Protein backbone atom coordinates (compact mmCIF):
# COMPACT_ATOMS: atom_id res chain seq x y z
CA UNK A 1 0.00 0.00 0.00
CA UNK A 2 1.36 3.43 -0.91
CA UNK A 3 0.24 6.73 0.58
CA UNK A 4 1.45 10.04 -0.83
CA UNK A 5 1.33 13.60 0.37
CA UNK A 6 2.14 16.87 -1.43
CA UNK A 7 3.39 19.65 0.81
CA UNK A 8 4.83 23.11 0.28
CA UNK A 9 8.62 23.23 0.72
CA UNK A 10 8.24 24.96 4.05
CA UNK A 11 9.77 23.56 7.26
CA UNK A 12 6.56 24.22 9.20
CA UNK A 13 4.87 21.42 7.23
CA UNK A 14 7.23 18.86 8.73
CA UNK A 15 4.65 18.30 11.47
CA UNK A 16 2.13 17.08 8.89
CA UNK A 17 4.63 14.59 7.49
CA UNK A 18 5.52 13.43 11.03
CA UNK A 19 1.92 12.79 11.99
CA UNK A 20 1.24 10.83 8.81
CA UNK A 21 4.47 8.85 9.29
CA UNK A 22 3.38 7.84 12.80
CA UNK A 23 -0.08 6.81 11.61
CA UNK A 24 1.31 4.64 8.82
CA UNK A 25 4.07 3.26 11.04
CA UNK A 26 1.34 2.06 13.41
CA UNK A 27 -0.38 0.32 10.48
CA UNK A 28 2.94 -1.39 9.66
CA UNK A 29 2.92 -2.93 13.18
CA UNK A 30 6.14 -1.18 14.09
CA UNK A 31 6.99 -1.08 17.78
CA UNK A 32 6.83 2.17 19.70
CA UNK A 33 10.55 2.98 19.49
CA UNK A 34 10.56 2.41 15.73
CA UNK A 35 7.46 4.58 15.32
CA UNK A 36 9.36 7.38 17.03
CA UNK A 37 12.38 6.68 14.81
CA UNK A 38 10.15 6.97 11.73
CA UNK A 39 8.76 10.28 12.99
CA UNK A 40 12.24 11.69 13.56
CA UNK A 41 13.59 10.31 10.29
CA UNK A 42 10.90 11.89 8.14
CA UNK A 43 11.38 15.14 10.03
CA UNK A 44 15.09 15.10 9.27
CA UNK A 45 14.65 14.03 5.64
CA UNK A 46 11.91 16.61 5.06
CA UNK A 47 14.11 19.36 6.53
CA UNK A 48 17.03 18.32 4.32
CA UNK A 49 14.92 18.35 1.19
CA UNK A 50 13.20 21.66 2.05
CA UNK A 51 16.50 23.34 2.89
CA UNK A 52 17.79 22.51 -0.58
CA UNK A 53 14.59 23.30 -2.51
CA UNK A 54 14.07 26.42 -4.64
CA UNK A 55 11.41 28.88 -3.48
CA UNK A 56 7.86 27.79 -4.23
CA UNK A 57 8.74 24.13 -4.75
CA UNK A 58 6.47 21.25 -3.80
CA UNK A 59 7.65 18.31 -1.72
CA UNK A 60 6.24 14.85 -2.30
CA UNK A 61 6.32 12.46 0.66
CA UNK A 62 5.30 8.93 -0.13
CA UNK A 63 5.06 6.00 2.21
CA UNK A 64 5.09 2.30 1.45
CA UNK A 65 3.30 0.26 4.06
CA UNK A 66 4.50 -3.28 4.74
CA UNK A 67 4.08 -5.69 7.64
CA UNK A 68 7.01 -4.86 9.93
CA UNK A 69 8.50 -2.11 7.78
CA UNK A 70 7.83 1.42 6.66
CA UNK A 71 9.62 2.89 3.67
CA UNK A 72 9.31 6.53 2.80
CA UNK A 73 10.52 8.83 0.08
CA UNK A 74 10.84 12.60 0.26
CA UNK A 75 11.39 14.35 -3.06
CA UNK A 76 11.54 17.86 -4.44
CA UNK A 77 13.19 20.07 -7.01
CA UNK A 78 16.56 21.09 -5.67
CA UNK A 79 19.15 23.80 -5.95
CA UNK A 80 21.84 21.16 -5.31
CA UNK A 81 24.08 20.36 -8.24
CA UNK A 82 25.90 17.59 -6.38
CA UNK A 83 24.82 14.71 -4.17
CA UNK A 84 23.49 15.53 -0.72
CA UNK A 85 26.59 15.62 1.53
CA UNK A 86 27.04 12.51 3.66
CA UNK A 87 29.46 14.07 6.14
CA UNK A 88 26.91 16.16 8.03
CA UNK A 89 25.35 15.71 11.43
CA UNK A 90 21.95 15.47 9.76
CA UNK A 91 23.04 12.52 7.65
CA UNK A 92 24.56 10.82 10.71
CA UNK A 93 21.22 11.16 12.47
CA UNK A 94 19.25 9.84 9.49
CA UNK A 95 21.64 6.92 9.09
CA UNK A 96 21.21 6.01 12.76
CA UNK A 97 17.41 6.17 12.58
CA UNK A 98 16.91 4.30 9.32
CA UNK A 99 17.80 0.72 8.46
CA UNK A 100 18.31 1.69 4.85
CA UNK A 101 19.01 5.14 3.51
CA UNK A 102 19.63 6.49 0.03
CA UNK A 103 19.75 9.97 -1.44
CA UNK A 104 20.15 10.95 -5.06
CA UNK A 105 20.32 14.20 -6.98
CA UNK A 106 19.31 13.53 -10.57
CA UNK A 107 18.29 16.21 -13.09
CA UNK A 108 17.65 18.81 -10.44
CA UNK A 109 15.51 16.53 -8.27
CA UNK A 110 16.62 15.53 -4.78
CA UNK A 111 15.20 12.25 -3.47
CA UNK A 112 15.76 10.79 -0.01
CA UNK A 113 14.55 7.25 0.62
CA UNK A 114 14.62 5.65 4.05
CA UNK A 115 13.37 2.41 5.52
CA UNK A 116 12.54 1.70 9.15
CA UNK A 117 11.87 -1.91 10.04
CA UNK A 118 11.57 -4.31 12.92
CA UNK A 119 14.59 -6.54 13.52
CA UNK A 120 13.81 -9.69 11.58
CA UNK A 121 14.78 -12.22 14.25
CA UNK A 122 12.46 -10.57 16.75
CA UNK A 123 9.51 -9.85 14.46
CA UNK A 124 6.38 -11.37 15.90
Amino acid at each position, binding site marked *: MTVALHLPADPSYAAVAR*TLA*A*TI*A*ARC*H*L*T*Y*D*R*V*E*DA*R*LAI*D*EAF*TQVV*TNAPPGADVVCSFIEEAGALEFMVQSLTILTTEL*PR*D*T*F*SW*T*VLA*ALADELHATTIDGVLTVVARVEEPRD*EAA
Partner: protein
Amino acid sequence: MDPAARDREIAAHIGLVHHVARHYRGAGDHEDVVQAGLVGLIHAVDHFDAGRGIAFSTYAVPCITGAIKHHLRDSARSIRIPGRTQELARHVSRTIDDLTAASGRAPTIAQIAASAGITQDDVLAAIEANHARTPMSTDEDAGALAALAMDDVALEQVEDRESVLQAMRTLPTAERRVVELRFYAGRSQTQIAEELGVSQMQVSRLQARALKHLRDLLSGA
Protein backbone atom coordinates in the same frame (compact mmCIF):
# COMPACT_ATOMS: atom_id res chain seq x y z
CA MET B 1 34.31 19.47 46.03
CA ASP B 2 35.63 16.96 43.50
CA PRO B 3 33.06 15.61 41.02
CA ALA B 4 33.01 12.10 42.51
CA ALA B 5 32.37 13.43 46.01
CA ARG B 6 29.69 15.72 44.64
CA ASP B 7 27.98 12.79 42.92
CA ARG B 8 28.14 10.79 46.17
CA GLU B 9 26.59 13.68 48.11
CA ILE B 10 23.79 13.99 45.57
CA ALA B 11 23.14 10.24 45.57
CA ALA B 12 23.17 10.09 49.36
CA HIS B 13 20.40 12.67 49.66
CA ILE B 14 18.16 11.66 46.78
CA GLY B 15 15.65 10.36 49.33
CA LEU B 16 15.03 13.94 50.41
CA VAL B 17 13.86 14.78 46.91
CA HIS B 18 11.40 11.90 46.82
CA HIS B 19 10.19 12.84 50.28
CA VAL B 20 9.47 16.44 49.27
CA ALA B 21 8.11 15.44 45.83
CA ARG B 22 5.51 13.19 47.48
CA HIS B 23 3.82 16.32 48.82
CA TYR B 24 3.25 17.45 45.26
CA ARG B 25 1.66 14.27 43.93
CA GLY B 26 -1.02 15.18 41.42
CA ALA B 27 0.47 18.63 40.85
CA GLY B 28 1.99 18.11 37.43
CA ASP B 29 3.87 15.14 36.03
CA HIS B 30 5.48 13.42 39.00
CA GLU B 31 8.58 12.47 37.00
CA ASP B 32 9.13 16.14 36.15
CA VAL B 33 8.50 17.20 39.74
CA VAL B 34 11.22 14.78 40.91
CA GLN B 35 13.56 16.13 38.22
CA ALA B 36 12.95 19.68 39.42
CA GLY B 37 13.56 18.59 43.01
CA LEU B 38 16.87 17.07 41.98
CA VAL B 39 17.96 20.39 40.57
CA GLY B 40 17.19 21.90 43.97
CA LEU B 41 19.23 19.19 45.67
CA ILE B 42 22.20 19.76 43.35
CA HIS B 43 22.03 23.47 44.10
CA ALA B 44 22.01 22.65 47.80
CA VAL B 45 25.03 20.32 47.50
CA ASP B 46 26.91 23.00 45.59
CA HIS B 47 26.10 25.83 47.99
CA PHE B 48 25.97 24.17 51.41
CA ASP B 49 28.38 25.65 53.91
CA ALA B 50 29.05 23.11 56.68
CA GLY B 51 30.74 25.87 58.72
CA ARG B 52 27.41 27.53 59.43
CA GLY B 53 26.48 24.78 61.85
CA ILE B 54 23.17 23.70 60.36
CA ALA B 55 22.32 20.21 59.16
CA PHE B 56 22.49 19.57 55.42
CA SER B 57 18.84 18.52 55.29
CA THR B 58 17.78 21.78 56.97
CA TYR B 59 19.47 23.64 54.17
CA ALA B 60 18.49 21.29 51.34
CA VAL B 61 14.75 20.89 51.92
CA PRO B 62 13.88 24.55 51.22
CA CYS B 63 16.10 24.42 48.12
CA ILE B 64 14.26 21.35 46.85
CA THR B 65 10.84 22.77 47.69
CA GLY B 66 11.73 26.04 46.00
CA ALA B 67 12.89 24.31 42.82
CA ILE B 68 9.70 22.23 42.66
CA LYS B 69 7.47 25.25 43.19
CA HIS B 70 9.40 27.17 40.57
CA HIS B 71 8.92 24.28 38.13
CA LEU B 72 5.19 24.04 38.84
CA ARG B 73 4.72 27.79 38.41
CA ASP B 74 6.59 27.67 35.11
CA SER B 75 4.72 24.70 33.74
CA ALA B 76 1.33 26.03 34.87
CA ARG B 77 1.99 29.16 32.86
CA SER B 78 2.63 27.38 29.60
CA ILE B 79 0.37 24.32 29.61
CA ARG B 80 -1.27 24.00 26.24
CA ILE B 81 -2.46 20.43 26.29
CA PRO B 82 -5.91 19.57 27.64
CA GLY B 83 -5.87 17.61 30.90
CA ARG B 84 -7.47 14.57 29.32
CA THR B 85 -4.72 14.32 26.72
CA GLN B 86 -2.03 14.69 29.35
CA GLU B 87 -3.65 11.95 31.39
CA LEU B 88 -3.82 9.83 28.24
CA ALA B 89 -0.12 10.44 27.55
CA ARG B 90 0.79 9.37 31.10
CA HIS B 91 -1.37 6.25 30.77
CA VAL B 92 0.23 5.39 27.42
CA SER B 93 3.72 6.05 28.80
CA ARG B 94 3.16 3.64 31.71
CA THR B 95 1.64 1.04 29.38
CA ILE B 96 4.64 1.17 27.03
CA ASP B 97 7.09 0.69 29.90
CA ASP B 98 5.01 -2.09 31.51
CA LEU B 99 4.66 -4.02 28.25
CA THR B 100 8.37 -3.58 27.53
CA ALA B 101 9.29 -4.85 30.97
CA ALA B 102 7.03 -7.88 30.49
CA SER B 103 8.19 -8.88 27.00
CA GLY B 104 11.68 -7.40 26.72
CA ARG B 105 10.84 -5.37 23.66
CA ALA B 106 8.81 -2.26 22.89
CA PRO B 107 5.14 -2.91 22.07
CA THR B 108 3.41 -2.05 18.79
CA ILE B 109 0.78 0.69 18.73
CA ALA B 110 -1.94 -1.98 18.50
CA GLN B 111 -0.56 -3.76 21.57
CA ILE B 112 -0.43 -0.51 23.53
CA ALA B 113 -4.02 0.29 22.55
CA ALA B 114 -5.27 -3.18 23.51
CA SER B 115 -3.49 -3.17 26.84
CA ALA B 116 -4.48 0.39 27.75
CA GLY B 117 -8.08 -0.15 26.64
CA ILE B 118 -8.04 2.77 24.21
CA THR B 119 -8.04 3.18 20.42
CA GLN B 120 -4.90 3.28 18.28
CA ASP B 121 -5.82 6.87 17.38
CA ASP B 122 -5.70 7.71 21.09
CA VAL B 123 -2.22 6.16 21.35
CA LEU B 124 -1.06 8.24 18.37
CA ALA B 125 -2.63 11.35 19.91
CA ALA B 126 -0.73 10.63 23.12
CA ILE B 127 2.53 10.33 21.16
CA GLU B 128 1.87 13.72 19.53
CA ALA B 129 0.94 15.26 22.87
CA ASN B 130 4.13 13.92 24.40
CA HIS B 131 6.13 15.99 21.94
CA ALA B 132 3.97 19.07 22.38
CA ARG B 133 4.59 19.11 26.13
CA THR B 134 6.02 22.11 27.84
CA PRO B 135 9.78 21.95 27.54
CA MET B 136 11.50 21.75 30.87
CA SER B 137 14.01 24.47 31.48
CA THR B 138 17.69 23.78 30.97
CA ASP B 139 18.34 23.45 34.68
CA GLU B 140 15.53 21.02 35.28
CA ASP B 141 16.71 18.67 32.57
CA ALA B 142 20.04 18.44 34.33
CA GLY B 143 18.33 16.61 37.22
CA ALA B 144 18.57 12.86 37.50
CA LEU B 145 20.94 12.43 34.62
CA ALA B 146 23.48 15.04 35.62
CA ALA B 147 25.67 12.59 37.47
CA LEU B 148 26.19 10.40 34.42
CA ALA B 149 29.66 10.29 32.99
CA MET B 150 29.95 11.87 29.58
CA ASP B 151 31.76 9.97 26.87
CA ASP B 152 33.70 11.70 24.19
CA VAL B 153 31.54 11.81 21.15
CA ALA B 154 32.87 9.99 18.11
CA LEU B 155 32.32 12.36 15.25
CA GLU B 156 35.16 11.47 12.88
CA GLN B 157 32.76 11.11 9.99
CA VAL B 158 31.19 14.51 10.43
CA GLU B 159 32.68 17.39 8.51
CA ASP B 160 31.10 20.09 10.65
CA ARG B 161 32.43 18.24 13.70
CA GLU B 162 33.53 21.35 15.58
CA SER B 163 30.23 23.16 15.20
CA VAL B 164 28.32 20.00 16.15
CA LEU B 165 30.43 19.59 19.28
CA GLN B 166 29.90 23.21 20.14
CA ALA B 167 26.17 22.92 19.59
CA MET B 168 26.08 19.72 21.67
CA ARG B 169 27.65 21.57 24.57
CA THR B 170 24.70 23.94 24.67
CA LEU B 171 22.28 21.06 25.17
CA PRO B 172 20.99 20.24 28.64
CA THR B 173 22.85 17.23 30.04
CA ALA B 174 20.01 14.77 29.62
CA GLU B 175 19.39 15.70 26.01
CA ARG B 176 23.07 15.54 25.17
CA ARG B 177 23.37 12.13 26.78
CA VAL B 178 20.39 10.81 24.82
CA VAL B 179 21.84 12.11 21.53
CA GLU B 180 25.18 10.49 22.27
CA LEU B 181 23.67 7.15 23.16
CA ARG B 182 21.16 7.12 20.32
CA PHE B 183 23.18 8.49 17.42
CA TYR B 184 26.76 7.68 18.29
CA ALA B 185 26.58 4.62 20.49
CA GLY B 186 23.76 3.16 18.38
CA ARG B 187 21.44 2.32 21.28
CA SER B 188 17.70 2.02 20.74
CA GLN B 189 15.30 4.30 22.54
CA THR B 190 14.13 1.35 24.62
CA GLN B 191 17.69 0.55 25.71
CA ILE B 192 18.38 4.19 26.61
CA ALA B 193 15.23 4.39 28.74
CA GLU B 194 16.31 1.29 30.60
CA GLU B 195 19.87 2.50 30.99
CA LEU B 196 18.91 5.94 32.28
CA GLY B 197 15.97 4.70 34.32
CA VAL B 198 13.41 7.01 32.70
CA SER B 199 10.31 6.33 30.63
CA GLN B 200 10.58 5.63 26.91
CA MET B 201 8.31 8.55 26.14
CA GLN B 202 10.65 10.82 28.05
CA VAL B 203 13.55 9.59 25.93
CA SER B 204 11.50 10.25 22.77
CA ARG B 205 10.80 13.76 23.94
CA LEU B 206 14.39 14.49 24.88
CA GLN B 207 15.83 13.21 21.62
CA ALA B 208 13.31 15.04 19.42
CA ARG B 209 13.88 18.26 21.31
CA ALA B 210 17.65 17.86 21.18
CA LEU B 211 17.64 17.27 17.43
CA LYS B 212 15.48 20.31 16.81
CA HIS B 213 17.77 22.42 18.97
CA LEU B 214 20.90 21.15 17.19
CA ARG B 215 19.36 21.64 13.79
CA ASP B 216 18.37 25.22 14.61
CA LEU B 217 21.85 25.98 15.90
CA LEU B 218 23.67 24.31 13.02
CA SER B 219 21.53 26.00 10.39
CA GLY B 220 22.14 29.31 12.12
CA ALA B 221 18.43 29.84 12.75
